[in-house]
């Protein structure tokens, strides 16, 4: 079973992930309408490109925006989670080997200790996010099952992956769970809020361009003081 899951199933879920997210990105861009949004996307390249990049870049930096600085706890939780969530799936040694053997794409790999620390940090970040969701009155007003689903989908691969390492006696069981939950994450990402993996960039770029092209770019230039 593991052969099938880690072979053809892995390739299939990777394909769904990549094609699905690409489709969402394409659908996003194709759905933009300069008249409806009132943003002249094709004009003012001198400031629109920097506007889009600043809008993405500043939010990728911890403390890079007033929004992050205003909410240090939320910021900490997000970044703890996302450092690992971006780096581990792509650069963990086992993942790079699997990726190379199945797709031929060769990526550098993280030192195992660093990967362990990142993974534990991500789980800590997830824990903080869960606590926020449970106890913040704001989040309690907003919570839906979809938000919990996303947290669960994210938690499982991290947790089972870490257990593979720390519970060697049940290695095969944890590994099987890890492969299943990892692939579930890949397959569901394009259809859930996990699609923000690409749509974050689209949406941020759009708002950055809106401010750079229309709302003040003329006076302010491309870089909005996020």
């Amino acid at each position, binding site marked *: 079973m593991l052969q099938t899951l880690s072979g053809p199933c892995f390739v299939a879920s990777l394909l769904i992930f990549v094609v699905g997210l690409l489709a969402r990105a394409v*659908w*996003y*861009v*194709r*759905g*933009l*309408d*300069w*008249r*409806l*949004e*009132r*943003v*002249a996307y*094709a*004009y*003012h390249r001198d400031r629109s490109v920097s506007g889009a990049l600043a*809008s993405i870049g500043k*939010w990728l930096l911890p403390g890079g925006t*007033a*929004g*992050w600085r*205003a*909410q240090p706890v*939320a910021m900490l939780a*997000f970044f703890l989670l996302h450092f690992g969530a971006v780096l581990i799936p792509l650069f963990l040694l086992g993942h790079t080997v699997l990726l190379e053997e199945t797709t031929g794409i060769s990526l550098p790999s993280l030192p195992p200790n660093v990967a362990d620390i990142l993974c534990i940090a991500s789980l800590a970040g997830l824990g903080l996010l869960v606590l*926020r969701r449970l106890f913040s*009155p*704001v*989040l*309690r*007003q*907003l*919570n*839906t099952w979809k*938000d919990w689903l*996303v947290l669960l989908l994210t938690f499982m691969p991290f947790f089972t992956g870490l257990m593979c390492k720390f519970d060697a006696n049940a290695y095969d069981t944890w590994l099987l769970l890890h492969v299943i939950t990892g692939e579930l994450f890949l397959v569901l990402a394009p259809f859930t*809020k996990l*699609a*923000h993996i690409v*749509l*974050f960039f*689209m*949406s*941020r770029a*759009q*708002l*950055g361009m*809106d401010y750079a*092209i*229309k*709302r*003040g*770019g*003329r*006076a*302010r230039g491309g870089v*909005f*003081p*996020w």
Partner: protein
Amino acid sequence: MSQILCSPAPLTTKEAIHELLADKGGAEYYKQMRQLKVNQDALAYDLQSTCKSRTRTWLNICAHCGMCADSCFFYKTNNNDPKQIPSYKIQSTLGELLKRNGRVDAEFMMHCMDVAWGQCTCCNRCGMYCPHGIDTGVMFSYLRGVLFKQGFTPWEMKIGSGMHRVYGAQMDVTEEDWVDTCEWMADENSDEWPGLEIPVEKVGADVMYICNAREPKHYPEDLAQAAILFHVTGTNWTVPRVGWENTSLTMFAGDFEGCAMNIKRIYEAVERLKPKVVVGTECGHAHRATVVEGPYWAGRESGDPPVPFMHYVEWVAHVLRTGKLKINPEKKLKMPCTLQDACNYVRNDGLGRYTREIMSYIAEDFREMDPNNEHNFCCGGGGGMNGIGRYRKERNIGLKNKLDQIRATGAEMVVTPCHNCWDAIRDMMEVYEEHNIKWSFLKPLLINMMEIPPNIEHVES
């Protein structure tokens, strides 16, 4: 009353406006609204054809992280009421409307109306605090458009939209009234300022000046002050006969067809008079409607107006910088002063640096509010809220936020180059009985402290 007051059709005649005005406070209008039939097919079609990937993605990927909550002054002033979280407000209205694909009743539409106009001023502040770049203010503005098309618009906004369609101005000021007021103000002040003119429809002037209908209608001295400042700075200026009004209650009302009519009137005046630049009065939403959003309603692909348009603060900063207007240092504001950043031209058009430049010329003790500039809070009355009786209570609660901000600076004067902010600040001082803080537009302040150049004749009155 037996006539139909509330319907999806916009007001297009004087009679219709007067009939609706006669319904005091819109009592009958709102009663009829409750019985209004939602055209679900048309609604579904509108949502399908105008709600595209940007908005749907915004609603879709909202992580419900709650980071927008604290950015909203309604949330803050309502004791952190979870129902005032921007994300919740939009998800429970537009989000729900999309989920049900327009299969909703009048009660739900009225709820949407009460949120879209009564709990959001479209200040766009929350959009700056969302990691995903979700601009809820933009979505509420869109929702207002959807609601307007179905007839679910607050009474005053419906009237405002009708005014623009019938009079080409937000108030019932006819072309004749306008031209008369210009002549009257020029006459009235020419004893003190010999040679003062308000040139109407002069082709080829450097500056075409456009303003808010409240100015000729309720405080025409504002128009006179604009004239004096143009006169003193030796500006070759004019006002158009038609297309002189740059506000857009149609924008607040969600009447985007009406918005297009407004802007085309103004751009036509530009075409007729061929000014080098257009200067708009001290009004935030007028600037937004004419300069920021306007070009799009006029179908201009570049998103730019046909000639450069300046907000009044840009023009003032320019004449101060170039020395055309000189300030008497003795007469600079001595008391502690602060500055109200209007969302519509500061956050949404980047003009905060010009207002600050002006403050450096006119105030000795200038104190910033916290937060300020792009991160400012709405005055509390934006997006049409000042004018809507139905949400007066909600507005007054929200005003407290700005009052606290002003008080924290210790300022005794709030420089307020925006009509809406000016109203909100006047009202908050009254509602919260604050009698020690003054507020003012720029024009009267400048006239009091300017140096009159030797070539300009001035007779002390």
